[in-house]
């Protein structure tokens, strides 16, 4: 097991979070360098995710590292029945770092146990996606100038949305106040509400995406109601349009408010919000590059 692996946001301390954010800021100012010269990074995508893979691979390329790997498990030995352990051990012989995405929960944690090279979790099913969390934190930090004492409103799919669960875990150091806005079917799971209570994080819970909630927010974090999380398509059709943000709803919002969304968006943010200076979701995706450069260099001990 390599201690620099990054599987879950819960694995790192407040100091490490702050250090990664400072590092991300450095890479935003110096996105191109030769710091990964001579390093080989493997990107193993057992589940396709073009957006995340391109972000990681751009991060490596801009730092002059080399990339091996696969983006489609159908073309890898997994389709021949090779175990995850064997695949990780084989790749460990070639690469200095593995960035992996897997459709099964806990896959990255297991991978850390079978190799000595660092593993970065680029998403394991509905479980963890810590580089997304770091780019979200960096976006909050950049737009608000701080992480402490913010009112953060989470909207949409709070049941299955792993990004919002990781956000709760990461923000516990920074005295936030949360509003959870979701339908009953997609409400924040009990275990995360228990987590907030245990950590002394105040929160409200409502089904009503009201002006009152919007106007007190520093950050509104919208999430997509994902079709693939539903077993019943009728249920999906019923809830998918319940929480859509329109520009008119932002009329009384705070000047420092920023709208975040992990993308891809479907219809939960109307396109009329895009030209509002409070819309931040496209810049947010760009921050992913710097956050991932920070995570990769940390994993390699650089």
């Amino acid at each position: 097991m390599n201690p620099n692996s990054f599987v879950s946001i819960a694995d790192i301390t407040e100091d490490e979070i702050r250090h990664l954010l400072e590092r991300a800021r450095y890479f935003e100012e110096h996105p191109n360098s030769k710091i990964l010269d001579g390093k080989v990074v493997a990107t193993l995508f057992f589940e396709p995710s073009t957006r995340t893979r391109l972000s990681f691979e751009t991060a490596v390329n801009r730092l002059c590292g080399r990339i091996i790997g696969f983006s489609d498990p159908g073309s890898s030995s997994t389709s021949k029945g090779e175990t995850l352990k064997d695949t990780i051990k084989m790749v460990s012989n070639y690469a200095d770092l593995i960035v992996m995405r897997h459709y099964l929960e806990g896959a990255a944690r297991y991978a850390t146990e079978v190799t000595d090279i660092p593993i970065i979790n680029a998403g394991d099913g509905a479980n963890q996606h810590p580089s997304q969390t770091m780019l979200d934190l960096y976006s909050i930090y950049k737009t608000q100038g701080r992480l402490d004492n913010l009112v953060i409103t989470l909207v949409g799919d709070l049941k299955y949305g792993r990004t919002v669960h990781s956000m709760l875990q990461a923000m516990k150091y920074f005295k936030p106040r949360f509003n959870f806005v979701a339908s009953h079917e997609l409400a924040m799971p009990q275990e995360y509400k228990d987590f907030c209570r245990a950590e002394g994080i105040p929160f409200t819970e409502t089904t009503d995406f009201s002006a009152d909630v919007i106007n007190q927010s520093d950050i509104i974090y919208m999430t997509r109601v994902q079709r693939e999380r539903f077993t019943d398509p009728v249920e999906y059709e019923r809830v998918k349009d319940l929480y859509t943000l329109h520009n008119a709803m932002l009329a009384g919002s705070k000047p420092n408010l920023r709208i975040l969304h992990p993308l891809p968006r479907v219809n939960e943010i109307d396109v009329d919000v895009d030209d509002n200076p409070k819309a931040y979701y496209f810049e947010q995706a760009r921050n992913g590059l710097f956050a991932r450069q920070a995570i990769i260099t940390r994993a390699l001990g650089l």
Partner: protein
Amino acid sequence: MNPEKQLAVAALQNGTVIDHIPCEAVYRSARILGLEDTTHAVTIGCNLTSRKLGRKGIIKVADMEFDADTLNRIALIAPTAVVNIIRDYEVVEKRPVELPDRIMGIVRCNNPKCISNHQPMATKFDVISREPVVIRCHYCNHSVSGADAKTI
């Protein structure tokens, strides 16, 4: 002899008696302790009268002692169990089983999308609460109460 005082199961000369096992956990406890494969004499009692539990189960294994880690493996499903070590018909040691902080290879994760249900690997759970017992999968982070945990 007073029939109420009569032993329901014959006394052991040497070995281990695990008493006060909840009835529903007796056979699973025997499996977890590997008694299905032993050549020692094993006596399993079920639905015996108990002042503490109402009904209880008991497992007696002749001429065999277990190390604490092995016995503690049943603590999740039989938290009330008490271990008696018998030597020459005397109880030389008596202690309750103790739930360890980490449970290896006994519980199956009830999350169908957990990696541990799809790869040839041992499961691993952390005990995150003792009263009531709640355990969490080391891999996928799903929590389950001790009562609802499925054993392998």
